[in-house]
């Protein structure tokens, strides 16, 4: 994204020079805003498509001064990684008779820096949480002692499905990232990373135990919830 931003800066600078010739103004007087090139202090303007078309029609401007075309290349080497952060909170209920765990509420607040498309960011968080809940409660690849995959189809391998999930409550804080020009941070794995500890910590809290090995499938939870009684039998 930073390389795209850098390349776009170069495209904008070059397009301004071409726009300056077309509108007979100095390049320094050209402003670019909302997809339009304007000459400061006048009502002259050209749209981005008009300027980009002219960029490929060499006789519109002196090609010994400006090379035709609007293609630019940029290379960006990040100064540092990005460090998204967040807090995911899971509230669940355990049916001690069957070991069935139901997630009642799942709330996540993340800081992904500057967000360009909020809708797809929200979608990424939803998908990540679903995957994280799947890992915590459902998914388990099991092999037999001689190496045969026993969970070889969805009849045995439990993928998280809509019915396994609550509606999520999502929030954001915005701290621009200092290590790239757009101030953006990664968001794709936030839910997948945060949901398993949130779910399992809620479970260990509910059962008053110290540790629980994923996945929290019904029989395993039932055994953990009734450990003392089962040991006594």
């Amino acid at each position, binding site marked *: 994204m930073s390389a795209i931003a850098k390349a776009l800066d170069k495209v904008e600078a070059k397009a301004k020079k071409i726009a300056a010739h077309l509108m007979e103004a100095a390049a320094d007087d050209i402003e670019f805003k909302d997809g339009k090139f304007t000459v400061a202090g006048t009502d002259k303007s050209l749209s981005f498509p008009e300027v980009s078309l002219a960029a490929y029609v060499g006789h519109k401007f002196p090609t010994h001064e400006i090379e035709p075309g609007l293609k630019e290349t940029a290379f960006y080497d990040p100064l540092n990684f990005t460090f998204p952060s967040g807090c995911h909170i899971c509230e669940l209920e355990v049916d001690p008779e069957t070991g069935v765990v139901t997630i009642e509420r799942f709330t996540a607040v993340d800081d992904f820096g500057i967000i360009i498309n909020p809708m797809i960011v929200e979608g990424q968080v939803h998908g990540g949480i679903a995957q994280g809940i799947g890992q915590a409660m459902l998914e388990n690849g099991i092999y037999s002692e001689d190496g045969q995959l026993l969970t070889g189809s969805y009849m045995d391998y439990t993928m998280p499905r809509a019915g396994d999930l609550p509606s999520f409550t999502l929030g954001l804080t915005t701290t621009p990232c200092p290590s790239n020009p757009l101030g953006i941070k990664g968001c794709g794995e936030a839910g997948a990373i945060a949901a398993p500890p949130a779910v399992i910590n809620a479970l260990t809290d509910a059962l008053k135990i110290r540790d629980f090995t994923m996945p929290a499938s*019904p029989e395993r939870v039932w055994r953990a919830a009734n450990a003392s009684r089962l040991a006594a039998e």
Partner: protein
Amino acid sequence: MYQFNYHRPTSLADAETLFSGAEDPKFLGGGHTLIPTMKQRLASPSDIIDLGAVKELGGISVSAGILSIGASVRHADVAASPDVRKFIPALADLAGWIGDPLVRHRGTIGGSVANADPSADYPAAILALGATIHTTKRTIPADAFFTGMFETALESGEIIAKITFPSADNAAYEKFRNPASRYAIVGVFVAKTASGVRVAVTGAAPSVFRQTEMEAALTKNFTPNAVAAIKVSADGLNADLHATAEYRAHLVTVMAKRAVARALA
């Protein structure tokens, strides 16, 4: 899938004639077990005789206090039937909870019962309600029908025509579903009918069975508490990736208790 001959007779007589003339025939109901098995090449019948167009096998009716469901009636149609909903609501609930929407709109009651899958839902209702299986040759009481894992009293070439149910004063089905396949890990159907209280358990063992200790307790006192303390033995119960025999045994009691509560609700 291997090659086979496909037939679609419109009468039971034609279906039986086709069957007796074929080398290694199979009857097809909704096809939700047979076709996947054929795709995996675990079955390779020479002839498939599709019973879907046989008119005698369709329809739901109530007369003289008996509910009759034709063998080729689909699960979704049982679930939605005003007759079933009025006569034995628990049976409509059970049908509406089988598998997923695709299964419910293709699978048939006759196919399910003839297949006798150890985790199928219908066998629990049939055994608990004391239903009667009417075939092309005879009538078979539920108690004599389910003989083992995928095994029934049906003889080769014998076709289920319909299943009849007596009314129930109280009845309900509770199941604990496999989280992946949604098949019953344990399903318990309790029914109080004119001939007494019955508790039938599916999913837990190789074949559906009656839990007679619970039946005796519920006959004296039809409340959830009557069965809550009854411990079921894990001996001979199924075990798989999702549930050990011990857990299944425990779930039989929990599902029975919840089924009684639902039957009284």
